[in-house]
């Protein structure tokens, strides 16, 4: 039985600059409802003359953190909403939100693993919610994140992902840089392809649950690669984010 999703007014409790182009907004919600990792909220903006527009943003935070949601937003040059969120919104401001929305692109520990998360650019946001949920739930499900970015400046949650790897939480992160890699980088330097996915999946136990999220063309290519590697279509879950931002 679905609870009625209503627009509610949330308050921006915190704003964190994750990268030069991305910010995370922590929003306190009076009618917060536990979400499942992978879901999103819609934000609606209203101008004084009544003009309205809305956008969807994936939830970055785990459901174990109650009362708030974290939304990581990439600033799109020429966009209508993300420049407003980045350039105008301050702590204490109110935003109209509706959610949590979704039911297909979701994961929680009850679904089991091993978990293969494939993310491109801001596609890593809902995948991060899955990782954070896994950690908060103290699960030991084998989890591997393949994260494709243009350059080191674009990596979201760098420190947190590093800490997870260092502390042996069972979460492994593999980066691939498509435009510019860090100095001394010996890892992948290209778009995600079949051979990369083969390397990654070969080290994982059977029964893989892949979640692929990011730019549409990346998602389609990766999902096709996974099919070619023999993973059943019904197990692969995808969320297309449209074109790349910049």
């Amino acid at each position: 039985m679905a609870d009625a999703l209503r627009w509610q007014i949330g308050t921006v409790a915190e704003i964190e600059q994750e990268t030069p182009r991305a910010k995370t907004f922590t929003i306190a919600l009076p009618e917060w409802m536990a979400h499942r990792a992978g879901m999103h909220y819609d934000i609606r903006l209203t101008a004084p003359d009544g003009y309205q527009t809305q956008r969807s943003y994936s939830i970055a935070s785990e459901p174990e953190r109650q009362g708030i949601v974290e939304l990581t937003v990439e600033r799109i040059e020429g966009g209508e909403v993300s420049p407003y969120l980045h350039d105008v919104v301050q702590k204490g401001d109110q935003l109209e939100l509706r959610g949590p929305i979704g039911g297909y692109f979701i994961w929680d520990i009850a679904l089991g693993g091993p978990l293969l998360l494939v993310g491109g650019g801001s596609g890593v946001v809902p995948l991060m919610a899955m990782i954070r949920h896994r950690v908060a739930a103290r699960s030991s499900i084998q989890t591997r994140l393949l994260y494709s970015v243009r350059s080191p400046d674009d990596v979201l949650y760098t420190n947190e992902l590093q800490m997870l790897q260092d502390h042996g939480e069972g979460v492994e992160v593999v980066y691939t840089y498509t435009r510019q890699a860090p100095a001394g980088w010996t890892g992948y330097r290209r778009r995600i392809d079949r051979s990369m996915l083969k390397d990654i999946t070969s080290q994982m136990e059977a029964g893989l649950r892949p979640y692929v999220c990011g730019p549409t063309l990346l998602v389609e290519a990766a999902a096709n690669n996974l099919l070619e590697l023999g993973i059943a279509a019904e197990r692969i879950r995808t969320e297309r984010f449209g074109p790349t931002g910049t």
Partner: protein
Amino acid sequence: MGERLVSRGFFGRRRQPEQAGRIPPGQYLVDDWPVLSAGPTPRTRLDQWRFTIEGLVRQPVSWSWEEFLKLPSKTYVVDISCATKWTKLDMKWQGVSVDTLIQAVQLDPRAAFITAYSYGGYTTNLPIPDLVNDQAFIAYQADGKPLTPEHGGPARLVVPHLYFWKSAKWIQGFRLEEREQLGFWETLGYHRRGDPWKEERYSGD
């Protein structure tokens, strides 16, 4: 839930006041050219492309790409308005007037409407008077360059005086009809004619 929240400091897209006279009501000006589509880009090979006029005509007529490019064409500079509210001013196109094409067929006296149909399945309906007298053309160049697939290339219909959903991308042909057959968007709530100056977006307007 209470009163509606006005988002502090948010104004949305604004109309340029100096151009206000040229922009239909409810529209805003853009400099780029948004890509909007109801489906994936059809890929038609030029050696298989045809444009056909059929239906209530004495004889259907069809042009191959080579034949089409040999037809007299000209440059049009027009304003276009999309029902999703953006307007572009002074857009330059190269194309063949619909008059040139219609003159190649003999219309049945019962013919009153045209269904424009596209590769990929899109359709839209127009009364004949909206397509003739140099009001519409089949374009194959935009802004001096060949029309790209995402914008309807190799060729699309352009009807600048109506909302841009009438300007069918990936045009394949015209079917002449006695009764108006509502097209893809018109069957789902969009206005049968679509005059931006009367804000005829939806069927109730």
